[in-house]
């Protein structure tokens, strides 16, 4: 057995946990090797140094009584639900309910808005275009979202505009123009043709 292997086993040798054959081999090596005997003395000096510490005196008041009081308190809190855990659960439930209501409100508003968005484009029967003058027609017509190109489809649509035209019939202070557009082909391709006069 060489010194490196013996010195690695000195800890186990000291604790008496080597197997019998290994213990005998280490014994034999130590009898003939001064370096390894010195290493063993070092090991033992570390142990003696560490064992200098005395046993700690037990505390004046044992933790037992303090601990049992704490446990009784915890038992009481669990039974009456006044502990931090039950308060946390109650707050969490309230927050969850509020969040669900808010989410429902947002969804309802969004649904309503989406339905209104379709009105200017394909409204129900009788919609008419409301604008400042005839010259505005082409531009405004092109700017409407989803509207087809000129001459293809006909819709009557009504969009309120701020500036009134004294010569035109008024509806709630707004100018109303009526446009009729013609649909080519199958009415299924676009909205149906409506009356010229709109309300």
């Amino acid at each position, binding site marked *: 057995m060489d010194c490196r292997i013996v010195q690695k086993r000195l800890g186990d040798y000291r604790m008496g946990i080597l197997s019998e054959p290994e213990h005998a081999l280490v014994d034999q090596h130590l009898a003939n090797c001064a370096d390894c005997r010195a290493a063993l003395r*070092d090991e033992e000096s570390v142990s003696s*140094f560490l064992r200098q510490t*005395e*046993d*700690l005196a037990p505390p004046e008041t044992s933790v037992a009584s303090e*601990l049992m009081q704490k446990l009784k308190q915890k038992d009481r809190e669990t039974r009456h639900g006044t502990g931090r855990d039950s308060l946390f659960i109650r707050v969490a439930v309230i927050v969850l309910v509020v969040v669900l209501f808010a989410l429902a409100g947002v969804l309802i508003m969004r649904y309503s808005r989406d339905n209104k968005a379709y009105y200017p484009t394909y409204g129900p029967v009788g919609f008419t275009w409301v604008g400042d003058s005839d010259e505005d027609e082409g531009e405004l017509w092109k700017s409407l979202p989803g509207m087809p190109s000129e001459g293809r489809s006909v819709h009557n649509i009504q969009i309120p505009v701020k500036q009134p035209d004294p010569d035109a019939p008024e509806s709630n202070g707004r100018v109303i123009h009526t446009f009729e557009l013609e649909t080519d082909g199958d009415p299924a391709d676009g909205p149906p043709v409506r009356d010229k006069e709109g309300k």
Partner: protein
Amino acid sequence: MNTSRELLRDYSDEALMLLVRDGDHKAFEELLRRYEKQLLSFFYRLTSDYDGAKDLVMDVFLKLYQAAARYEPRAKFSTYIYQIARNLSINEFNKRQFRKTSSLDEMDEEDGIEIAGNEPNAMEIMERQEKQQMVQMALNSLNEEQRTILILTEYQGLPIDRVAQIMGCSVGTIKSRMFRARQRIKEWMVEHGL
């Protein structure tokens, strides 16, 4: 149901813990009585803080009590309770750095804890307290793992395979860390002329 105190002295730790699981408070007090001092010693050597060590002992038993309903005697009870202690010591170590005093002057009077025994001579008391502090400083020079392993083997007297279970690693790893810990203590002793 609470079994009488005298009877409980004959019960094994595992049997007591099963009684605690069934709601026996006297069994819990008996376990407390058996492990309080050694856990206090373990935590004090780890933290160098006597009051902190007392709090940690209480935390161990609180955790034990809370976990009682789930207890199954899969390993020795001492392994189980030291695993709880070890986990708490890691949390504590992460929360606040364990004091690493580098000289005797930095350790104040509060660190001179009471030593068991009858000491008529004040000089002898001081000498013993100084030795205590030296050993504590040497332990503080180790990292948390090395310190824990050395304390469990040298002071708590636990066998290597039990220490390996508590630390959650192999016997070979424990032996190698213990070897490095002892080398470090030896170096510290040489640095301080011991």
